[in-house]
């Protein structure tokens, strides 16, 4: 069964909603939840996720909210944190990673922490059994792929195209997938630009997909009630889950 990872922006539009949404998604085909940590300057993200980040901050997101949501969710659905390095760095990683582990958070996804900057933290992550997800980009050479995935755990985040989240771009990834398989058996999930339309194509020869902007598009619709938002996100999950496993 191929896997579905769902990104949601923590506390957008509010904390209790994030908990309800995460739990509902867990019951509707989502294998792992990525709890996004809102950040003022999300440079890897497109306008949709950036907007949700800023709205969450405007309505008062604090890092402790992430801990509260994780506490309610992580024991029931596999949960990872997705955020920019500064958000984690300011919490002091030596304290934060054990805390993540105690909450049952299985990994961190940090798009602006490349391989070169992770060394000093690898022991911290592994001793706490928390994964630091490795990224592979379509701009990477075979040599670089070998280097960046040496200590990959849980899954590899393959960025679907050179760009930011939620854009309509697409690139042929088959060569790069072959390169990854050459060096590791860690499952590979594709993220960026995955939605109900593209999921089937993007999942070709990989083990799962990561979906973000497609969910946030629904959350940003002001005309929908909270219940409707959760229903639509759940329906989207079931649709994508079935498409990637066709």
């Amino acid at each position, binding site marked *: 069964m191929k896997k579905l990872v769902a990104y949601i922006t923590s506390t957008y539009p509010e904390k209790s909603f994030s908990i309800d949404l995460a739990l509902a998604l867990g019951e509707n085909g989502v294998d792992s939840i990525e709890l996004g940590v809102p*950040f*003022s*300057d999300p440079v890897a993200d497109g306008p949709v996720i950036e907007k949700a980040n800023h709205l969450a901050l405007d309505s008062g997101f604090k890092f402790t909210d992430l801990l509260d949501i994780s506490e309610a969710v992580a024991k029931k659905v596999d949960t990872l944190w997705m955020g920019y390095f500064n958000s984690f760095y300011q919490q002091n990683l030596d304290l934060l990673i054990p805390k993540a582990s105690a909450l049952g958070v299985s990994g961190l996804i940090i*798009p*602006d922490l*490349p391989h070169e900057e992770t060394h000093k933290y690898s022991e911290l992550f592994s001793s706490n059994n928390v994964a630091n997800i490795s*990224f592979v980009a379509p701009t990477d050479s075979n040599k670089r792929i070998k280097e960046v995935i040496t200590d990959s755990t849980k899954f590899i985040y393959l960025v679907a195209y*050179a*760009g930011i989240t939620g854009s309509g*771009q697409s690139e042929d990834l088959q060569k790069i997938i072959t390169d990854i398989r050459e060096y590791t058996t860690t499952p590979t999930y594709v993220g960026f630009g995955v939605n109900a339309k593209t999921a089937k194509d993007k999942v070709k020869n990989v083990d799962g997909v990561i979906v973000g902007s497609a969910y946030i598009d629904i959350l940003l619709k002001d005309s929908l009630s909270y219940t409707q938002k959760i229903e639509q996100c759940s329906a989207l999950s079931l649709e994508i889950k079935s498409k990637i496993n066709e």
Partner: protein
Amino acid sequence: MQEQYLPSASNFDPDTLGHFGIFGGRYVPETLMPALLDLEKEYEKIRFDKDFWDEVHYYLKDYVGRPSPLYFAKNISDELGAKIYLKREDLNHTGAHKVNNVIAQGLMAKRLGMKKVIAETGAGQHGVATATICALLDLECEIFMGAKDVARQELNVFRMKLLGAKVNAVESGSRTLKDAMNDAIRHWVTNARDTFYIIGTVAGPHPYPMMVRDFQAIIGYEARAQILEKENRLPDHVIACIGGGSNAIGMFQHFIEDKEVECIGIEAGGHGIETDKHGCSLEKGRPGVLHGQMSYLLQDEDGQILEAHSISAGLDYPGIGPEHAFHKDNGTISYDHVTDDEAMDAFVWLSQKEGIIPAFESAHAIAHLKKMPNIKNKLVIVNVSGRGDKDMIQAQDILKDKFL
């Protein structure tokens, strides 16, 4: 004639991963890592390469007008009872020090076979310099500028367009330099394969801070020889303003290893550092990661980046180059700040005393002269990083009651 400038290896070069102590590094999406590694390799090739520097020098001399003079400012010297020399980067083509760096990076873009160039800009000086060099070297140019800066630097926006550049007004966040850099990075991530990003200051991911410092260090290289020729000794103090910190590090580079010289970097004090409207990343910030580097940042307790404030768009940035962060902790450079009001006073003072209208940014460095308690009989160099032409509309508005 002084021998042609060539960068030299410094005690303060970063380690192989671009770290100045804990600062610097490369905190970027993986998509950009191959481009940064290629750039680093290319930079290693040209850093001490005479052919490359011959070409840079051809332009610096005949196009920019280097060397820039070191001018003895007699009138303000008399008033202060000190000897004040001004390094006249304001006389460079395009009006500021920015062009020194841009020429070298433009030539690197050519060497790497890149036809497209992007740049972020605050005050517009770096945007204008980049647009200029793109016109000169036949490169396609796209500039990212915060919408707030687009409004307050209208003339520079027109200059960029006149020079053939496309200017994108960035509407997100605080709509200033920080946000312009976010969007420049987003554009770069999307076009990493064929686009060269000309960063305008000693910030961003490795190798930019080191590379831009080397490109700007011609300022200090010239100033050192000029002061030795005129005064036969090294200065007591060397002063420069700091936004990202490139004119300062460029000036300090050739004085920093001399124990008898005090290098002083001046941050934007805005409305005062006791308020929340200033640009004093070093004085009021703490280490964090933004725009590809670890450095001092203005941020809240959760690491959300705060808006900076300065009357000068070029200093209106919540971060600072990582090498400055290192020198602050290391004690190699002294840092202080000057408020908007003090900078405006100095802007008028230098204009009326010496007939030199400095950029608002540079006016911060000038203003510090009046705040130094023991300046009597001292020999001081101030870097006039840019000229005030770009600030005329804003100055007219601020000073309208003063000059009726």
